[in-house]
Every structure is written in C-alpha cells, then in structure tokens.
C-alpha cells in the first residue's frame, strides 16, 4: 500500500486533532497526539497486537461506521486510566459510581468514545461531503487482544486478509493517559478517499 498523499495525511491529522480536542474538552485536560498519523497496512493476523501486549487490560469503545463510509473505530484506554476518566466524568455530572464498573461508568465511557469518534468522522464527512453515521457506542472491558481478535474475526468473515489501519496515540500533558484511536476503513473506503483528497 502506498503511503497516504500529503493531502490525505493532512486531513487525517486534522480529524485526529479534532478527536484529541473533543477528548480534552470532555476531561478538562490538554491532550495531544503523541505521534503523527500512522497509516499502515497490516496482515489480519497482526491486528490483535497493534495496541500492545494482547493480555493488557483495557476499556474499549467500539463504533461501527455506517453511511457513505464503512468500517470500525475503536478507542482503547488502559483499564486503570479509564477508571480515572470515568470518575472525573461522573464527578462533573454530579453522579457517583465508586466501583467504576457499573452501568453509569459504561455510559460515561461510551459517551466519551462517541464524542471522540464522531469528531474524527465529522471531519472526514465535512471534508469529503459524505454522510457518515457512527453506531451507538459499545463498551467492553477486557484484554486488548480479545477485542482486536474479535474485530479480526469480523474482518475475516469479509475475507479481508490485509487492511489499512489509521492509528494515533493520545497523550495527556498532566497525567499518563495513553489512549489509542484506531480506524479500520471499509473494504474500498481508503482508495475512494485517497482519490477524492
């Protein structure tokens, strides 16, 4: 797969910056992309290790992309840091969920993922004049490899053996939050967008 064109890279960078800003606004913490946009092509078998060791406990927010684009968005946050985030979010909302594993915590995290994912997709939709809708967010707390291998199973059903992945790491300036945002475009989406960029 050829590297993304300069135009496409700029668009993705802007979309990911929007996601970081959305997350910052939600948390009241300045967040930035730690690394530039990483667009890479991977074998399906490599997907489970893209966000670090497979057994790492994480909270993941999963969105299916529907409309003029397809594919999957996944926000991956280390489990402990996700609990800190949830506490902050619930405190802002004046609600308490001390265990951090209940319905409220899931709902807060799902909303956060929705805001971050929508910020990313909105930038793409605006830039390319597309209608794109994320599915309701799904929250899962588990090993990162289990989440990603389930996603790999879905891609295997589509008989995809290689896939483009857009990935960035979001890092806070005051805490040690290191979250990943992954976008796996639908089968022909990447080439379509590159042609339009």
């Amino acid at each position, binding site marked *: 797969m050829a590297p993304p064109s300069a135009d496409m890279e700029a668009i993705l960078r802007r979309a990911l910056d929007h996601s970081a800003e959305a997350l910052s606004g939600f948390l009241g913490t300045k967040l930035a992309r730690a690394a530039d946009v990483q667009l890479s092509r991977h074998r*399906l*078998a*490599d*997907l*489970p290790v893209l966000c670090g*060791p*497979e*057994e790492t*406990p994480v909270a993941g927010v*999963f969105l*299916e992309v529907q409309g003029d684009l397809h594919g*999957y968005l996944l926000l991956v946050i280390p*489990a402990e840091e996700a609990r800190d985030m949830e506490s902050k979010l619930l405190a802002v909302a004046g609600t308490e969920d001390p265990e951090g594993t209940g319905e409220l915590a899931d709902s807060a995290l799902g909303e956060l993922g929705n805001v971050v994912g929508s910020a990313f997709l909105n930038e793409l939709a605006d830039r390319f004049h597309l209608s794109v809708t994320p*599915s309701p967010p*799904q929250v*899962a*707390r*588990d*090993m*990162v*490899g*289990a*989440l*990603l*291998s*389930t*996603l*790999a*199973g*879905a891609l*295997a*059903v589509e*008989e995809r*053996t290689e896939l483009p992945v857009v990935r960035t790491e979001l890092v806070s300036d005051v805490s040690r939050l290191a979250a990943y945002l992954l976008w796996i475009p639908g089968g022909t989406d990447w080439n379509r967008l590159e042609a339009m960029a």
Partner: protein
Amino acid sequence: MRRVSLGLGEYRAGKAGAEQWFIYGLGSCVGLILCDPTRQVSAMAHVVLPEKGRSLSGEPAKYADTAVPFLLEQMERLGAERSSVYAQMAGGARMLAISGLGDIGGRNAAALRETLAEHGIPLVAERVGGTQGRTLRWDLSTGRAVVSRVGAPDEILTPQQYVYGEVPVYGRSASR
C-alpha cells in the same frame, strides 16, 4: 520452558517437552487442543471462523471444519492414535455486537463440537461463550491446559484423569 504464542489461524503440533503454547486474548476465536495422552502427542489451533466455505485461504487451522482433520493428520504423523485422542477448547465469547456477524463465537464453538463428533473425538472440557476474553495455555510437559481471564483466578481446564502423569504411557507402565 519455551513459550510459543499462536496467532490467528496458526497451529502447533508436537510431542511432550519443555514447552508451553499460548493463545492470548481469545475473543470470538476458539483455542482448540487435541491430545493423545498415552503417546503424549498434542496439537493446538487458533480457530477464527466456523467454516472454510469457498475461501481460497491455505490456512486449515483457521476454520473449525478443517482444523480438526488437519490437526489429527499432523498428530498421526507424530505417532498419535486417533482412538486415544481427546479434545478441549476455550474462547468463543460474544464481546462485541457487530452488524451482520451474529454470534460468531458461538458458531465457532458449535462448528467445532460438530466436527469433533464427526471424527469421533470426545470433547472432555470447554470454557466457551459469555462476554469475556480468555487466554489459553497448554503445557506440553504436563498435558495440562489453563484458562485465564481478566480479574479472575486461573482455571485448570484439563480434567485430572487426562493429565500426563495420570495416564498410562504407551509402551511402559503408568508413571504415578
């Protein structure tokens, strides 16, 4: 102890030795272990989908319907006797609801049960389904499988009577 990790659609087959095989982070996939405990020959596969269908993929361990006969063939080459082989499996969770996918984990497990029955291989232990991911570990020195989950203690999957030390070894008396 050598540690070997099996990725999506990968497999291993081997004789007893100082080795452990791992499948980390099983979500909807299923980790399948076949073992002939009397000859201490075993195989493991990381099964991703229930059926090969019309796929041109050359990865027999990736599909439930092709993984079982393929592993049996690999084990027979190493001296296993089909009549002594038993199976165990873990995984097949429903972690994410993905449109058009249904319960792929449940279908993987069901397809494996069916294929094992077709080949006359008893399934002696399983930890499948639910919504939690699992890691499956197979110890080739003891013939014991262990399942791990986040926030839960490790569980021994293999029934005690199938562990190597408990089974008479082919060609010599039981090593109790």
